[in-house]
């Protein structure tokens, strides 16, 4: 990671900026801050950061509106949203409005840094991220995000709601090691006593439906002791 990578941190809570900004600096980033969406827009103009980390609930202009304004202006600067609560609705909204990723408060700062690195690695300058695509395609497998349906060889596949969210997340984060904890946070929204097992059960369901062999996976690869990785190339539309 080049030490010049500039990140704009947007949050109306001074305590969060005060503690998070130095941590990000120590993690090797250059950090600019803003207290709301309006300030953020101005800072994006003047500082041209490479990535924005933004809270959702803020006065004047909230994170969601900031995101909408950027995307309407065809500005595809990577944005990570800090959602307030783990509500599925809010996560879905974050995706719809073209966020590159999201992380639930409260979070471990290390986790945020991992997210930032992953998003920067994935981002293609000036182009919409996969997470903002309506249609995801990977060989015979396709995912229609508007209708929330998945197809294999043009035939619809039947998945439980959780497996569907899991597949969506994996497909929008190809070639990235996603930990079980992260998947839990994404799919369940809160920690769960039998968490890792629940994730494994859903991945097993996905593999069964996709006809994927765990020892020679076409789609979902197991990273022993860590998590999963969507190993195939994904095209977004």
């Amino acid at each position, binding site marked *: 990671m080049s030490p010049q990578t500039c990140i704009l941190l947007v949050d109306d809570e001074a305590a969060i900026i005060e503690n998070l900004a130095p941590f990000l600096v120590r993690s090797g980033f250059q950090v600019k801050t803003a207290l709301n969406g309006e300030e953020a827009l101005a800072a994006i103009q003047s500082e041209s950061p490479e990535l924005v980390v933004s809270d959702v609930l803020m006065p004047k202009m909230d994170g969601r509106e900031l995101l909408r304004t950027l995307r309407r202006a065809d500005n595809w600067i990577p944005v990570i949203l800090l959602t307030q609560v*783990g509500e599925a609705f809010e996560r879905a909204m974050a995706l719809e409005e073209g966020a590159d990723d999201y992380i639930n408060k409260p979070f471990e700062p290390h986790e945020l840094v991992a997210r930032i690195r992953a998003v920067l690695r994935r981002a293609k300058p000036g182009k919409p991220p996969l997470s903002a695509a309506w249609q995801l395609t990977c060989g015979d497998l396709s995912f229609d995000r508007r209708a929330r349906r998945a197809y294999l060889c043009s035939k619809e596949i039947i998945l439980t709601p*959780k497996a569907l969210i899991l597949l969506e997340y994996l497909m929008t984060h190809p070639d990235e090691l996603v930990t079980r904890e992260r998947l839990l946070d994404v799919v369940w929204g*809160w920690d769960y*006593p*039998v968490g890792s*097992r629940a994730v494994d059960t859903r991945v097993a369901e996905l593999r069964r439906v996709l006809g994927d062999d765990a020892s020679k996976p076409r789609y979902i690869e197991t990273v022993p002791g860590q998590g999963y990785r969507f190993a195939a190339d994904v095209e977004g539309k």
Partner: protein
Amino acid sequence: MRLRWFWVLLPVVLGTILALILFLTDFDNSLLYAQADLGSILFGLGVIASILTAVVIIVLEQIEKIQINATIEFAENRRRFLRRLDHELKNPLTAILAGLANLSILEDPDERAVTLESVSTQVDRMRKLVAELRKLSELETRPLDLSPVKMTELLEETFALIEDEPVARERILTLSIPRAPWPLPTISGDYDLLVLAVHNLLTNAVKFTEPGDTIEMRAFEDGSQVVIEVADTGPGIPESEIPYVWQELYRGAGARGVQGSGLGLALVRAIVTRHEGEITLRSRPNEGTVFTMRLPVRM
């Protein structure tokens, strides 16, 4: 309350019985003609109208009273919850304040590391509390992820999770699930949430028992329900505390000093209620406790 409506029906029933007797027997069922002057009829109608109005007023008042009581109860619940939340936050916060004060004067790196560790434990405690609160509030509103749930599989899996824990190995754990004449039915439910509920009951049983105690989980089919019991030979819950254990953040005298958010049973109850089931408990001090969860099969 219900019983009172019986008195409303009583005159109708009596009248019907008398009429039937007259119709079906040889008693003299003669035609009667009644006559009255207009003044008396108007007076009579006035009395009847007044009685009906009185009845309507009484009913409305009762409804209002029930609503007021519900509001009072709601306010009382809220106050109680805030008081408990305040209490739950105070302890970790006090520890964090003390830890930070220590950090500002401590110089020895080892001592600093110990203090940091303890502060981060307290932060973790608060984080868990917040996560549990969120879980509870989401549980009450988010749609259930319903699918056919094989009860035998669910109970065995959850039981295995508990058995794996080191503290559980010091207790005598048994699981009894019927296989004959037929296994437990498949029910319609949210698999993950049901695992969470059963897991919470088992975790509680482990938490409140001593090494050597017995914990039994048994399940059986009862009509259109699946009944799951989690029983332990722990210290039991005093009778006076039993109605309160389901409340958020409630801690009985025996639960002080035991790790936990105080939300476990509230979560269990919320999950069971969402599944249109019911959960009850029986307990005897110094003998133990048994939780009984009933879930409708409805497939």
